[in-house]
């Protein structure tokens, strides 16, 4: 197995209903939407295959009921999938014993929850130290470690507070700290900022990026907010009614949406902020013009000068080699997505 891949999911199914395993087998592991409906099965996840690469931020995006949380829970085996395979660092998670699972969760996984899931009878310190406590680490050591993480998330001085004494944002900081206390390799975040006010959400997203820049974890992040996905993601997987519709970088999703559903999502995104010269340029025209732009410059920055000038711009790569050109036409196409459909 490729050691670049941390978690590998293949053909995951999660059905709710009576004896779903049998139903799935009878339908060659691939029942259609009609078959599911007529037999009164509720498909949470359908035939999902996805790999999580080491060190990346993979965002799973979808509206409520699209199965994104279920897929995440299959990855950590909080939920037993009806069918499919999950490999964690090359180890078959679905065949692991309870004991092995407990070991993996104690040392390799951390998870943050939408509604924080803090234990109400424990102080901030005790909450953060909780995963260490269940491992049987002695009190002094675990408190020391817990204090470090609390400092990391910026809650120093609040160690003895109880969760009910903290604001939502602060509570989620405790949630982040708790999930980081055991120094996990993989960090699962299930809509961590959805329950927060928009302003706090922005702040927490920055906090998250700051932490990630220091920690470099492998991250699976769930959200229903496309803006959030674009801000944070290396790659985005879009889910719709249990299916993974498309996986790709934010640029790919915007420039080459696989379905109308994805296109609908990406329509309202300010494209100029996201797209760079390379992703919109004319590949055929490799002439060298008077004016040049770098391949990775965002459209937002170059749009006005291209639109003002009469001629075209050459797009050059790191080695100053011309890889394409930009004219008014490409810029306008990029800025107004609708044009593409005509």
């Amino acid at each position, binding site marked *: 197995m490729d050691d670049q891949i941390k978690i590998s999911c293949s053909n995951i199914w999660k059905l709710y209903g009576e004896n779903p395993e049998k139903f799935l087998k009878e339908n060659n592991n691939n029942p259609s939407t009609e078959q599911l409906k007529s037999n009164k099965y509720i498909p949470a996840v359908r035939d999902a295959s996805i790999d999580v690469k080491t060190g990346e931020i993979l965002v799973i995006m979808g509206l409520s009921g699209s199965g994104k949380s279920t897929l995440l829970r299959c990855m950590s085996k909080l939920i037993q999938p009806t069918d499919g395979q999950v490999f964690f660092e090359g180890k078959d998670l679905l065949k692991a014993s309870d004991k092995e699972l407990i070991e993996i969760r104690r040392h390799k996984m951390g998870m943050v929850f939408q509604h924080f899931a803090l*234990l109400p009878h424990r*102080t901030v310190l005790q909450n953060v130290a909780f995963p260490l406590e269940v491992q049987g680490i002695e009190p002094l050591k675990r408190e020391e470690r817990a204090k470090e993480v609390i400092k990391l998330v910026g809650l120093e001085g609040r160690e003895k507070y109880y969760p009910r004494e903290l604001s939502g944002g602060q509570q989620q900081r405790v949630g982040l700290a708790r999930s980081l206390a055991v120094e996990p390799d993989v960090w699962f975040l299930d809509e961590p900022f959805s329950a927060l006010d928009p302003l706090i959400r922005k702040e927490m997203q920055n906090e998250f990026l700051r932490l990630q820049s220091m920690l470099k974890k492998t991250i699976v992040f769930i959200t229903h907010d496309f803006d959030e996905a674009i801000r944070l993601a290396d790659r985005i997987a879009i889910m719709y009614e249990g299916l993974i519709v498309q996986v790709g970088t934010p640029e790919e999703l915007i420039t080459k949406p696989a379905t109308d559903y994805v296109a609908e999502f990406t329509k309202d995104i300010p494209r100029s902020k996201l797209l760079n010269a390379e992703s919109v340029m004319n590949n055929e025209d490799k002439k060298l013009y008077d004016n040049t732009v770098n391949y990775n410059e965002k459209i937002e920055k170059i749009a006005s000068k291209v639109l003002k000038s009469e001629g075209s711009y050459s797009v050059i790569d790191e080695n100053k080699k011309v890889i394409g050109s930009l004219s008014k036409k490409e810029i306008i196409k990029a800025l107004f997505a609708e044009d593409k459909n005509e």
Partner: protein
Amino acid sequence: MNKIKTIFKGKFLFIFGPFFLLWLLRYVVPNYTISSKTPHWAYIPPKSCLGGCGSIDGFIPFVDWTNALIQFLRKYEIFGLFTFRDFTRGIANYVDKFLDFTEAVLHKGFPSYEIGPLPWIFIITLTVILGFYLRGWRLALLGGTCFAYLILFSKRGIWELSMKSLAAISVSAPLAALIGLCLGILAVKRKKFANFLWPMLNILQSLPHFSYLILVVIFVGIGTKAGVIATVIFAFPPMARLTILGLQNISQEIKEAGVMAGCTKWQMLFKVEIPAARSPIMLGINQVIMQCLAMIVIAAFIGQPGLGHDLLIRLQGLRLGEAFEIGVAVVLIAITLDRYSQALALKEPERREGNFVKRNPYFCATFFAIIICSILVFLFPFFNEYPKELTVSASVYLDNAIKSFTRSLFVPLGAFRDWMLIYFLMPLKAVFQSMPWTGVILFVGAIGWKLGKMRLALTVMLFVFFIASSGYWVRAMITLYMVFASLVICALIGIPLGIWASKKESRTKLVLNICDIFQTFPSFIYLLPAIMLFQISDVSAIFAIVIYSSIPMIRYTVFGLRNVPQQIIEASITSGCTERQLLWKVKMPLAFPEIILGANQTLMFALFMVMIAGFIGTVDLSQEIFRALSFSDGGKGLIIGLCVAFIGLTADRLLVEWSNQMKKKLGFIN
């Protein structure tokens, strides 16, 4: 009110038709008269038809079967070593060991070590500190007042009696809580066990106390330990219920957080689940304590000494003044224990920083209080044993007051009583007694079927069939008549009061507070004013039942009316509703499902109280149970108990289902 119409539209005939037909037929059937000795089998259940099995009563000899089972359990030797009775008595002896200890601490002392019981000053001081710790000075004041009353009014030994009762409670409450907790946890973890436990809890909670008192007498004997065991059996079901609810209602995320932290199963249980469900579990403990208190009078029937025993004797001797004094003690203890345990349930851990004394103020206060009290007790005998000369008693004055009160009201009260009997109760009784059992079975079945649940219909029909076949049909109908009469009066009082109370925040608070206080009174207390006002009659029984069981009617009405969504009220006001229209066209229909639930609870309370009212001589099932108790007839007691339980369960099943369906129609639940 339109809602009710739509639910019954076109179904009215179906539900009531067969019932009324049979009822009317009764008067057409030839040779039938009320006094006829051989009534038609369809009206009064026939007597033993299995012939020769010696049953004097029902046509299925349940009583004989049960008694045979009890005999078997008494005699059969498990592994040839000991009988089931030896086993139960063995357990009882363990209970006795704990009892010896608590009794020694609270009122007997340890004579062999020449140590007396805990001096009263300790008990008062520690109660006050605990009150401060749990909520604040008000609670502390309540606790202090309660024990001060007990010591001050102990001319007739109220203090000692209270300590006896508290000693019994301090064994039975923890035991019941522990059993309930374990069963609850087991039920949550093992689905199969839950399927077995739920119906058991339902029956145990609707079985009248007296019916298992008899079994306790047979298998354990009498005295304090028997009382404790009866109390435990009675008190553990709500604990188990609340444990199950608490554990099931923990948010999924918190459980997942526990799993993701790598908890083992035991770590999950003790570090995550139980702490996360601590509020409902603590509420369960509160319930257990209240049930234990309710039992102190009832356990006196099988010889448990204490407040209950003396209250009972004084009630029997109609020494109302003295009974009143003891009653106040019981009520004060009940309110105190209730408020303390409620405060415990709602107690959140507090953040304290600073030096040792600042971090542990109550620990230090307790420590110093113990030292100071010890010195006081050592120096002044006053603090060790409260001198009898300083105790007071108001019973003589109370007696006189009660006498002059009842004498002055004798004529109007008597007139009221007779009026009630002649124009309301007697006719109603006749109506209920003339109901044909076959018709009643069809009636409940039809309701169940119309609610769309075949299984429900069959269950309730089976319940009624059991009552009919057990041989206690006529008595059961008298019980039902008492319950129904009380229910009607409760609704007439409770619903208007609820409406009145729901109109203003301050009224709601006031009424709910009064309800709270009334609900903490042990049920026997309600017999006191009933006897005072109406002597011994159906009216006094119904009076006691009504005061006790109006509480849920009021509570649910207020709850239902106050929980109508604000938006809907605002929409109605802007549509131009008058106050009256708002109430009758908007609020009442929306609150109706809740009011039905209130009626259901009222019915349960009434059924419970009817059994206790048997003490003042009603002629329904409760009288039979009292008779069974004095003859130690376990089979009879249990079967009558089941009859009562099935009356309750039939009504409960139908009303709750009805209410749920209405709530669904209104979109309150999915």
